[in-house]
């Protein structure tokens, strides 16, 4: 049976996020001919609506209220609940982003719904929708479904393929003013530490450093290689614990779980908890002095050598013929 599917789209740094397009692709599959509605809270415009249409939305709600210009749980959960009641969907999808992780469980509780979070694949068999999700940070997987009520899931970036945009596709665009009151949290300031950097969970390429970088300055060659590749910079727990870098860069079972096309591990031995966070990457390159390092067991290509020699050579080569 066809279903009405609601997708909460999201913008970051002025552009729609890839994971929103991925959610639309999943939504189309779940909808099975039914209507896909994308909702954008805050500063959405017609260009966003067009783009959402090209990726599969049949209808776009641009929900406005000055309280929606920055995320707060109270404002967004009120606006979401209002739109939810208008759309009356059979299924809801969000990205498993900072926003999705915060909003989805809050409104799931408000509406009395089950929620399957952080899904990496979906299987639609007739009326049944089964979600695949990692457990133990990807050391194992589970298949899960909603047994009672509306289907509700958050999906992880970089896993479900977004469709090809169809330039001819359009959607009904509805501008909607939400009623919002009683915001309990006040944002006093925002410190942008990520300006100009690429988000780890959405990056196609990640260059990571471990204990082998030896110091905060030791991350410089890692950053230079990342710049040459247009990649994000990650780190192992050992590097974070040693104070070489910020915890927001940590990849692993504690930290971020990533699935880029290419993961380059530099001076990382490959502790179980780190492997859990990155071993589902498509291609893994390991650079380590110790030929016995466990990282080589999951690497597609390995170079046994000093990262301070190897990494600058890679950077030089990639600079010659840009990616």
């Amino acid at each position: 049976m066809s279903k009405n599917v609601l997708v909460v789209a999201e913008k970051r740094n002025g552009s729609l996020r890839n994971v929103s397009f991925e959610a639309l692709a999943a939504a189309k599959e779940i909808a099975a001919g039914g209507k896909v509605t994308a909702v954008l809270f805050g500063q959405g415009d017609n260009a966003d609506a067009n783009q959402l249409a090209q990726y599969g939305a049949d209808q776009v709600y641009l929900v406005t209220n000055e309280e929606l210009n920055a995320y707060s749980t109270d404002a967004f959960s009120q606006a979401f609940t209002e739109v939810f009641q208008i759309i009356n969907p059979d299924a809801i999808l969000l990205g498993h982003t900072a926003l999705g992780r915060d909003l989805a469980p809050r409104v799931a509780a408000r509406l009395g719904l089950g929620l399957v979070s952080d899904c990496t694949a979906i299987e639609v068999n007739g009326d049944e929708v089964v979600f695949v999700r990692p457990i133990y940070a990807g050391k194992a997987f589970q298949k899960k479904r909603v047994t009672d009520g509306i289907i509700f899931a958050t999906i992880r970036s970089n896993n479900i393929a977004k469709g090809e945009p169809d330039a001819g596709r359009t959607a009904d665009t509805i501008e909607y003013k939400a009623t919002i009151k009683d915001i309990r949290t006040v944002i006093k300031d925002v410190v942008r530490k990520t300006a100009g950097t690429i988000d780890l969970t959405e990056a196609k390429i990640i260059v990571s450093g471990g204990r082998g970088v030896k110091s905060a300055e030791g991350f410089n060659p890692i950053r230079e290689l990342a710049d040459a590749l247009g990649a994000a910079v990650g780190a192992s727990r050992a590097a974070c614990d040693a104070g070489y870098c910020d915890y927001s860069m940590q990849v692993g079972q504690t930290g971020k779980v990533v699935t880029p096309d290419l993961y380059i591990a530099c001076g990382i031995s490959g502790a179980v908890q780190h492997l859990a966070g990155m071993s589902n990457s498509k291609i893994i390159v390991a650079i380590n002095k110790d030929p016995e390092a466990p990282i080589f067991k999951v690497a597609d290509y390995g170079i046994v050598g000093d990262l301070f020699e190897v990494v600058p050579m890679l950077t030089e080569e990639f600079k010659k013929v840009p990616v």
Partner: protein
Amino acid sequence: MKILVLLKQTFDTEEKIVLSNGKVSEDGVKYVINPYDEYAVEEAVAIKEKHGGEVTVVTIGPSRAEAALRTALAMGADKAIIVDDESVFGDEYMISKVLATVAKRDAYDLILGGYMAVDDGAAQVGPRLAEELGIAHISTITNMEVDGSLVKVEKDVEGDIEIIEVNMPVLVTAQQGLNEPRYPSLPGIMKAKKKPIERLTADDLGLNIEEILSKTEVLEQYLPQQKTAGKILQGELPEQVSELIEALRFEAKVV
């Protein structure tokens, strides 16, 4: 100030996962406090030490989870609650309903928990519980200060930091970097042995199981395909580097 900490006992992150009969095997596994919950325990104890108050830790789980509660008590929490009843070991919907019932037995000013557990990784229970209790929540915090009934936190938003103020009661979830959890001291461990652990069942809480049944189910669990070790490149370093770049460009086609 009354503080409640939500805690889950999880596998140590260095454990490998083995399945037996489609379930994750618990044989010989080392258990720890979920690392994110450990930050929450540390923060709660530090707030108590600075501002006074009482810290209660709560878990839902089998009797083995009492070991995690004892560790939290040894770190400085004052008392613990365990809901050890298989009939409530359900999904996040059910767990948060049960926790809400526990939390409503007292008037907590602050509730802290990890933003996710490293086993299920769902990151749902904190926000769900706050909604069940009708209080505000802030997730993934990396710093926290208490000033009377005002709480000032730094929230990690995918690497950016938001500085947020909120009044109690509030629920916050801990992100890595919030603090360095202490190791329980020997006197702490001795004292913890005498601190109370309250053991509760669904009946004790007056729960009607039929009304809070899980809304999701696990159909199957499996291990990912084993990654086979690839190629260790040979030869002089410059040759290896060229070979790697060739391979990434033309074989793997990822750059």
